[in-house]
């Protein structure tokens, strides 16, 4: 049951992701992205990462998508055609890449089995809030703190790039 559910959700996520970049209308892109994010949350559930699934819906499908939609509406971008456009050159390019990748994959697959029979061990607390908290504040404390530095850089960088002018400009 779970593998089938996972496959269906993965297919939905892929189609929605392609639709996100293929729609000409930004609002439709945004809604495709919502579908993609929900499908991802469903995949997390099938992988027993319930906490992550809840966070995915709250943060991404909820808060961030609202921001996206607000920005799109404020900028009034919605009037630029609604057709689904897949141009020919990118498609040909992807096919060429797939052909090369397929050739590589064939070489490798001919010498190696696809599925190794030892799945990585998963502790009981996997995916629960205590389990995640223990990882975040234990083994991954340093990366966790690093993320705050990363966010600081991102925020200051965004402000600097988006600011209309520096103090002495335009005086």
């Amino acid at each position: 049951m779970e593998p089938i559910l996972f496959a269906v959700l993965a297919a939905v996520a892929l189609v929605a992701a392609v639709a996100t970049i293929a729609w000409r209308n930004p609002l439709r892109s945004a809604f495709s992205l919502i579908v993609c994010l929900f499908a991802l949350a469903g995949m997390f559930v099938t992988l027993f990462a319930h906490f992550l699934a809840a966070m995915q819906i709250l943060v991404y499908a909820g808060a961030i998508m609202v921001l996206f939609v607000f920005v799109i509406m404020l900028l009034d971008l919605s009037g630029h055609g609604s057709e689904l456009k897949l141009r020919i050159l990118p498609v040909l390019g992807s096919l060429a890449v797939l052909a090369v990748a397929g050739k590589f994959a064939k070489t490798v697959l001919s010498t190696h089995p696809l599925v190794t029979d030892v799945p990585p061990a998963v502790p009981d607390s996997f995916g629960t809030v205590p389990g995640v908290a223990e990882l975040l504040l234990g083994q991954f404390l340093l990366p966790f703190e690093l993320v705050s530095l990363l966010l600081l850089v991102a925020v200051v960088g965004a402000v600097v790039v988006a600011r209309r002018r520096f103090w002495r400009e335009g005086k």
Partner: protein
Amino acid sequence: MNDLFLLAPVLIVTLTGIIVLVMDLFRSPEASGGTHLAWLSALGFAAASAAAIRMWPGSQAPVEGWMSALSVNAFTLFFWILLPLIAAFSVLTATGFDRENNLDHGEFYSFHAFALAGMMVMVAAVELFSLFLGLETMALAVYALVAMRRTSARGAEASIKYFITGSLASALLLYGMVLFWGETGTLRLDELGRVLSAGQCGPILYAAAGLVLVGFGFKIAAVPFHLWTPDAYQGAPTPVTGFMAAAVKAASFAALLRVVFVAMLPELFARSFTFVDLAIAVAVLTMTVGNLLAMHQEDVKRMLAYSSISHAGYLLTGLALVPQLGSGDASLRFVNGAVLFYLATYGLATLLAFGVLARLGRGGDESTTLERLAGLATRRPGLAALLSLALLSLAGFPPTAGFFAKFALLRELVVVGRGKLTILVVIALVNALFSVYYYLRPMVAMYMRKAEGEEPEEIVSPTSSFALILAALGVLVLGLFPGRLVGVSDQAARTVSYKVARGLNDGSLGALAPFAAVQSETDPKGVGASAAVQTGSGDDAVGGR
């Protein structure tokens, strides 16, 4: 608590960034604070470098607990000493330029600090997640630096190109790392290496390794992932270009070396002919394409961008050597040592070159074309001499540091390659010869041509001159007396070997026992090894090649 001290250099740099950012709030909007902020950040960076020097040569013992994501060994410390120095030179040479281009704000300097902090985490990471976070911190700060010059259309183009291709590279890298995790259940490099060597190397792992290597290929601007480089380097503010070419490239190379040598060696490279061929092909392509395209550039800044691509090619020959070695671990570290030495000297010369270029042209108007360079020797003989020195070092003329770096690297190719890599050596030599042509062109313009029409003005900045002279002295001193740095590079390179990394995590052996194991293989008598272990120096057992 002791673990926290190990992080001191990174903490100092991060704090410097925050202090500079806050200090900037307290100056009046009219005052130009560039020079003060530059000195403040440079002092902070120098302090971090000094702290790293005090910690040398670090500890081999793995740190447990929350610090286990980082390893503060000699390899890490080498870059913790080198990268802050590069950043310090970079901010000092930016004074004057920042005033003219309205960049003398706290953010400009604190982004240098944050990028540096990211790099320092990246070179220390022995676990892929921290490595990625360090890399992204660095990348975001540098994107912002490139985008900061608002008035220039070329700058905007550069920032968009750099941002898009950089994000693509990060995404590839991340995807590769995720596949590694999905297949092995670990993100630690040494454990990845152990899984790979245990022979459970499934097809997914090949895909993962491929994605990670391609991601790094973008970051170090190897051909065919180099297309963003010329535009990004040309459009970025000139001192930032120097920072990108010297520091970003060195940090990316360090992380690449650690990933390849600790996690992927020799299993992936030795077992699969594709990776060997690809490593050699990419090295050859990178140096040749970079060189050929550099020849026709009329803009020295763009020419140096292409030249930085070709230098990445020389450095990649170190990776091409790997499959020739098999289990000859001792030789491996000599190759690595030569690569580290090359990175240091290349970084210094590059900073010097871009530092001089930053001084040309006032009021945000960069005059770095060959035409505008004409007659610089009569207008500003000092700047002309400094630029010439940098170009000579990049070309590899004695007695500059660049000569010794190329010599050491090619020598390792000949000696360690045991004749199998003759073609690669010949190609590298021919490339080095061709490169002399385009490195000499700016010198011809400066010394033998007269300026036509209106003479361009240069920026006056004593701080920048001070830093440039220091860098020039560095280039000369390292060229005349390279011994000390060579020793340090070798010592650093030894700690990034896969045997050391894996042996240490056995747990059954003492902290230094893996050294003994490695050295007894190379030293048939085994006497030097045990003696070295007892004294704890380990230096004198190096010569067992």
